[in-house]
């Protein structure tokens, strides 16, 4: 009996070693495929995104009218209409992000990894022609404070087919990556310039248009708060829905909003009796 048990133990141990070896080998193969860019899904994510946007545009405006971002064009079945020059919201949120590849303003080749690593990437889609963009070119050149140290700012302009490299080089802020790539604009479906997209974990987690850097930070902060994330680096992982709605996070958010309104602990306004506006109307 003892011998049989010992034999069984040896067999189990050997099988365990075999399974671990197979898993390790499998992981190595997956990593190699990933590094080589082998697509395990039949559809390329960039093609899927483009096809989705094309299909959405066809449904939205079969007559080939105003594109997204030009305002006034509401998706079929949508209850809102955006104003002139205001892009439709939330078109990219949750969609897969794309690595960037193109030229830098000097005409050299550059590739920027957006989908990998532990960092977040803030893509600033700017042009050299729009006046609002010049505010951002200027602000970036003077130096802006990013909301968190793990956020990497990358400026993306269209390629040499739509931009003048010399002009981009003239405006390019020192120390900030600038990629000229019309493909990137198409991949991300940029509706208007300036436009911003925050990528985290291979997904677009925040997006929108703004006229100034503080507006960008506010926009992205709100966008992330909607999904229970924080723009700040520490503890930016999404809390559980329960914690988000009822837990300490909620208390912290309320405290922050009260503080922003000038109401701090001990403020008499916190202790005013709650009036019931319907009380006098009741018999």
């Amino acid at each position, binding site marked *: 009996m003892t011998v049989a048990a010992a034999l069984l133990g040896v067999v189990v141990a050997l099988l365990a070693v075999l399974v671990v070896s197979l898993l390790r080998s499998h992981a190595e193969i997956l990593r*190699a495929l990933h590094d080589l860019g082998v697509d395990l*899904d039949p559809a390329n994510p960039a093609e899927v995104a483009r096809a989705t946007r094309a299909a959405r545009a066809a449904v939205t405006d079969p007559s080939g009218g105003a594109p997204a971002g030009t305002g006034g064009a509401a998706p079929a079945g949508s209850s809102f209409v955006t104003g002139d020059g205001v892009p439709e919201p939330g078109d990219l949120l949750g969609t897969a992000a794309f690595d960037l590849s193109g030229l830098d303003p000097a005409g050299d*080749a550059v590739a920027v*990894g957006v989908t990998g690593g532990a960092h977040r990437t803030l893509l600033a889609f700017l042009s050299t022609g729009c006046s609002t963009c010049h505010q951002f070119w200027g602000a970036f050149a003077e130096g802006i404070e990013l909301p968190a140290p793990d956020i990497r700012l990358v400026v993306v302009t269209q390629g040499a087919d739509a931009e003048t490299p010399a002009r981009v080089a003239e405006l390019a802020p020192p120390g900030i990556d600038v990629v000229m790539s019309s493909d990137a604009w198409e991949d991300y479906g940029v509706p208007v310039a300036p436009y911003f997209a925050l990528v985290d974990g291979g997904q677009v987690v925040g997006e929108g248009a703004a006229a100034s850097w503080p507006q960008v930070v506010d926009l992205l902060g709100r966008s992330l708060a909607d999904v229970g994330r924080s723009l700040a680096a520490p503890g930016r992982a999404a809390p559980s829905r329960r914690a988000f709605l009822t837990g300490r996070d909620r208390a912290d958010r309320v405290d922050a909003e009260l503080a922003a309104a000038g109401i701090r602990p001990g403020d008499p306004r916190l202790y005013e009796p709650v009036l019931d506006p319907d009380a006098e109307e009741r018999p």
Partner: protein
Amino acid sequence: MSPVVAAARTMSAHGLSVKVPAGWDGSIRRAAGDPSDTDIDDVGRLGTTNPVLHVASFPLPAVRGDYGGGAVQAMGPNDVFIALVEFDPDAGSTPLFSAPGLRRPLRVTDFDRSTMHRPLPGASGHQQFFHTRGRAFALYVALGAHRLRASSVPRVDRVLATLSISPR
């Protein structure tokens, strides 16, 4: 459902071409007066003006030296940095660059802590010089952690397998 994997991007310029793995950074550029950590006696005050290829598994800072000065300090344990620095064609006839072509596959024994251009705790490096197609190059590779070289070196080698060099 099979996971969707981002595609590698082929980066080409100045007669050099390489596939940059998904999520990695890369560049092929002429270092026009960039801060260089190459010895002044070798390449002059402003560093080499020949093409420099960089591929890295981590975000590369916009300003960095030919051999990763200002960049490799940000490497994590699993990160790797690859630099292919071209020298003047005349250098190809010198003993230092006499090796005909890039020697690969790289082996874990090719890496040594003392080969780092700038010593970093735990990191190691590899360097080799060669000539091919009338061009002279130095390949420099840095690993974030020498103890993880068994998994890092094959990743570097898979990138180098996609490297293509054309005559100037």
